[in-house]
């Protein structure tokens, strides 16, 4: 009888041990991730949250209100532009620099220096990036000064205050600070491609462009897809640089979804509506994450 009891105890112990090891992470994820998400989803069905005495359920009223808000759709439009252009430019510039650094045209020392310089924008924090670009882009700033030599700007050209170009300008700043991630990831991928493939294709008379198209791109595909999806999610959530450069203005011209949510919550104290917009962003990010996980699974297989 004692033996049976001991065996059961040992079996329970064996089964429980991995869960005990997992439990710190699980508890942290529950408290810091799952619980806030559930709260935000719950808030989205209330008349308001945080600042009301007795919040009550209002069904889908907040969703109807958000989806009929012109400002929300303006923010979506700006976000789509900001994200798609940023991701496309990141991949093009990242690929270009990675190919350059992987080529044999430069000496090792030159490549090392270039690598350090190219990676710099990624090292800066959002506040440094915002201050740096704000100083450069302000009227009479260095950008105006340099462009005035080639007659592309005057000394008082407004880059961040002009509603027609402000979104393009903040997208440019976001591209500048985000491409090194692609460059490093692609460079790592390039260095893992077997040289035999290039040599045999050269023997078959393939041009450099064809080698790029039929060897480099397919070999890099898993990495490219993964970083694109990650970048997509990060760029959708991008807030600090935009907020510090323009605050979503002028006249909402740079108001992305994250700025819209922040202003609803912290300018207007409409926490329920802000939660509703946040749930929308969450759904978009979850869809992309599902693709990302599937992609990762494929890579592992």
């Amino acid at each position, binding site marked *: 009888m004692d033996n049976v009891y001991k065996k059961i105890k040992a079996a329970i112990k064996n089964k429980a*041990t991995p869960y*005990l*090891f997992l*439990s*710190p992470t699980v*508890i*942290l994820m529950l*408290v810091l991730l799952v619980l806030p998400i559930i709260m935000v989803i719950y808030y989205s069905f209330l008349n308001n*949250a*945080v*600042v*009301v*005495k007795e919040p009550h359920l209002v069904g889908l009223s907040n969703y109807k209100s958000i989806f009929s808000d012109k400002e929300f759709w303006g923010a979506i439009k700006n976000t789509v532009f900001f994200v798609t252009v940023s991701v496309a430019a990141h991949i093009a510039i990242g690929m270009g620099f990675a190919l350059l650094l992987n080529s044999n045209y430069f000496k090792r020392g030159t490549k090392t220096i270039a690598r350090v310089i190219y990676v710099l924008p990624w090292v800066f924090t959002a506040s440094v990036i915002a201050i740096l670009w*704000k100083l450069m882009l*302000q*009227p*009479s700033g260095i950008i105006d000064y340099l462009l005035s030599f080639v007659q592309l700007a005057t000394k*008082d050209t*407004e880059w*961040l*205050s*002009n*509603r027609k170009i*402000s979104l393009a300008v903040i997208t440019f700043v976001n591209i500048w600070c985000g491409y090194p991630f692609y460059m490093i990831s692609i460079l790592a991928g390039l260095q893992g491609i077997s040289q035999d493939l290039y040599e045999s294709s050269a023997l078959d008379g393939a041009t450099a462009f064809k080698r790029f198209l039929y060897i480099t791109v397919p070999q890099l595909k898993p990495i490219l897809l993964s970083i694109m999806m990650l970048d997509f999610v990060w760029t959708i959530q991008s807030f600090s640089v935009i*907020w*510090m*450069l*323009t*605050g*979503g*203005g*002028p*006249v*909402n011209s740079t108001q992305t979804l994250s700025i819209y949510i922040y*202003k609803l919550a*912290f*300018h*207007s*104290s409409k926490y329920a509506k802000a939660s509703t917009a946040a749930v929308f962003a969450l759904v978009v990010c979850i869809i992309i994450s599902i693709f990302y996980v599937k992609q990762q699974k494929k890579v592992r297989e």
Partner: protein
Amino acid sequence: MKMKGLFKKLAALSLVGVMSIGVTACGSGTDSSSTSSKNTAEGTAESTAAAEKGGKDTGVTIKFQQWWGVECPEGYVQNICDQFYKDTGITVELLNAPFADTKTAIESGAATGTVADLVSVDSSWVYDFADSGLLTNMSDLLAADGFDQSIFASTWDVNGSIYAVPVVNYAYPLFYNKDILDKAGVTELPKTWSKFKEACQKIKDAGYYSFALNLDASSPSGIQNVYMGFAWASGIHFKKDDGSINVAGNGDLKTFAEYYKELFDAGYIYPGMASLTEADMTSKFASGEIAFIVNSAAAITAWNKDYPDLNLGAAAIPVKDDYTGKSGNCVASWAVGITENSRHKEEALKFFEYLMAGLNGDDASINADLAVTQSAFPGSTLAKPDYSASSEVFQDIYANYNAGYPINEFTGMKEANTIMVDWINELIPYMDGDTDVDTYLNNVQAAIEDIYGN
């Protein structure tokens, strides 16, 4: 081997235990009467020492959420709290946060049931805080306590009741750079709109920027302090006497809007106003790029310290050429309200009264000293601040302040921040020439009415 396995399991169990306790501690509510911790440990130690010197400890601790501790000289606000403890035996725990974070701190405190007993509020938050039940009705508390409310220079009322009271007020005068004015040949300070335009032209001709208007959307204070500050000086208001909104079809506001557009079209306003923050504006003024700005008198201390070469002057905001009445002076305030959920409202009120009129309601020396220290004006009419040691610039501001009357029509408005952002969003297209003045004013009226649900 077995021992090693056992050790690992024990370590894992201990880790889980410690983390669970930590998580529970994070989630649990705090009692406002509990012993203070956080950044006030030092202050509490001082308070305890004070109690030992003769004060009788009531065992009550009230929390005061504010940005004053960040902006006042180090230890200044804590010293007031320590003195209050000596006098009353009530401990005041200061919860310091920069102004930009204070609103969020108050709201998140309200959500988790840990909001401070006493909170410093901005004029743009007071309606929303009162409406949501975060702030308590101070009229009732003051009446019950029999406190003389006539000593308040101003109060912030919602639906006829006091919800916050300004402790000190900051004026927003017209600052000027004397060196730029000298170089531009502006020998006399402009007192009217037309003279101001003439001065701006001279400054522009001398190669400087004349004036600045900050319309950055992240902190929409420019529409209040600079834009409407200019209008209020000429007695132009956007509210009727009964408090109703009077923007659309308001002839005075229309004339004023057209005047500002003339300034903009003539190139007198610093370019990039739509993304210009107040901080950008003041630094450009201090570095000698801009001749005139409207800004808080609180900036004088920082300018004197950081820009000792700045040849600073302050004047009254120019008024409409035919205006002969008193000028409204835009003010911003450090006001205090008591939270509804406070379990120590009586003690919180006592501390507020202490700030305004001392222990017995007849000594406003604390209020006066706070005003002098912060280049501000007292919120208590009992206070007799001694500005004799203050700079000449501040003396001028004080004279102008006394000649006019304090005003801020945005105070107590519902979602005041959103109203200001909406106003900016209508003003920019008008200044850019994309809409006409009537459309601009109509849209502002519609935006405000939309917020009030009319």
